[in-house]
């Protein structure tokens, strides 16, 4: 059974339709990459799945439960989904350790020592153990983004949503974040990631979905979508990307 199942999603902002009859299915342990031009609705889709935006139509099922039902408690749903943003969004007034343990302690009511031990272990695993007590503004962009991923992981989510997690980074810092996502995939984490890194999408994704004007107009294995796209819009988009030297 699919872990995430979106059907007929629609979202508009003041009459401007951003998602339109969008379908997306993600099986457990699979990685789906969302690609598409700026403004095609990738971030909006991820925000809708995390219930940060209210849908205008359609249903979203997580683990077979209809989470788009207004009677569902969104806080409870979000605890099962980890989200990482393009701009990291770490809490600047909290140390790295406090950023990571905030949700485990306040949401999952875990004891402080236990939450901190888990956080330190996760940090050690990504080579950031020495930064546990630093504040976010003392970290490089790549380090901040890795902390943001660790923070999302500390909730032991069923599904990770990653929104262009490398776009704000200098090229030499992109690698360390991508390596971390690669490891997550190896651990079997289910992920939906919006990305402009076509090479990475090809390497890490099981499926690539091309979004255009709020719909998935082409999807399939990366080799097929990125090498032999059938839709003219996809061809155009990839052509521009190749011209820009990003594939």
């Amino acid at each position, binding site marked *: 059974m699919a872990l995430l199942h979106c059907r007929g999603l629609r979202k508009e902002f003041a009459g401007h339709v951003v998602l339109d009859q969008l379908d997306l299915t993600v099986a457990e342990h699979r990685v789906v990459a969302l690609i598409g031009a700026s403004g095609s609705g990738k971030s909006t889709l991820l925000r809708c799945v995390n219930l940060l935006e209210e849908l205008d139509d359609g249903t979203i099922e997580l683990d077979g439960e209809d989470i788009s039902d207004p009677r569902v408690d969104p*806080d409870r749903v*979000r*605890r099962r989904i980890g989200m990482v943003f393009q701009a990291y*969004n770490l*809490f*600047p007034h909290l140390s790295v350790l406090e950023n990571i343990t*905030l949700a485990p302690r306040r949401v999952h009511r875990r004891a402080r020592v236990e939450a901190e031990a888990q956080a330190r272990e996760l940090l050690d695993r990504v080579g950031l153990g020495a930064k546990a007590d630093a504040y976010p503004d003392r970290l490089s962009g790549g380090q901040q983004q890795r902390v943001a991923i660790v923070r999302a992981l500390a909730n032991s989510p069923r599904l990770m949503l990653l929104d262009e997690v490398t776009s704000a980074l200098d090229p030499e810092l992109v690698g360390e974040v991508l390596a971390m996502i690669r490891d997550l995939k190896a651990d079997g984490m289910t992920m939906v990631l919006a990305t402009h890194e076509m090479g990475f999408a090809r390497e890490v994704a099981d499926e690539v979905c091309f979004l255009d004007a709020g719909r998935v107009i082409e999807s399939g294995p990366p080799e097929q979508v990125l090498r032999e796209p059938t839709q003219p819009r996809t061809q155009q988009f990839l052509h521009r990307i190749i011209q820009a030297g990003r594939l």
Partner: protein
Amino acid sequence: MTLLEHVPSEAQVRRSAYRRRQTVYSVLVAASSTAALGTLLVIAVTGAPGWDRVRQSFLDPAIARDALPAVLSGLWLNVRLLVCCAAGALVLGLVIAVLRTLRGPIFFPVRALATGYTYTFRGLPLIIVLYLLTLGVPGLRLQGMPPVLVLGGIALILTYGGYLAEVFRAGIESVHPSQLAAARSLGLTYRQTMRHVVLPQAVRRVAPPLLNDVVALQKDVGLVSLAGPIDAVRAAQIATAQTFNYTPYVVAGVLFVLLAIPLIAVTDWVTLRAARRQSGG
């Protein structure tokens, strides 16, 4: 293996020596220009034709000594009122600001009340609130009426709570929505998001203007003497009426400034620190 001590280059040694000389030179210039200006001021003031009369009626040491105990005990009232009112107004302002951010139809009346409160008390002159509470309320002759001093304190808290609520609200609104999104995406409830993510950042950011309002409050607490209790200024006024000499006012003024110095220093320090944090240092 031991690390080799860094031996400064010849150029660096020369630069350091030059900087040290510059420092000594700057201190000397500052000291002599201050001395020159001070001398000029003293000559100008003491040489003024009315200086002797002014000195007698404003700077009489004997009268200052006599008035000091009364003014000091009045000042003690100011200090106690300031501490209680500042604490009360900060709590009230924070509560009102948070109430105004609540969304959802259930909270409509709360939101409306909080908004009405800030509009009313920011518009109403403090003196009128003071008179209404200290003269009007006792007129109701209710059982267990608190003393006038407490009523005056409540008037101060109500008025300053309105100002501080707006400062807190500006701070809450200055926290970027992406911080809220990040907190909510972690599963934190609205309350937890406010408590652990939004308010700590908001309060840090508006600490300087908040403290500024507390400094202003320090000067306004004395207004309770309009309703009877004797604060430092009122004590000075009484002493002046007895001696026909204004020295007690000067005594009170000096004491007020002394009292304000630590508060203002703290405000400056907090402002400086906030500015440093802002610049990402």
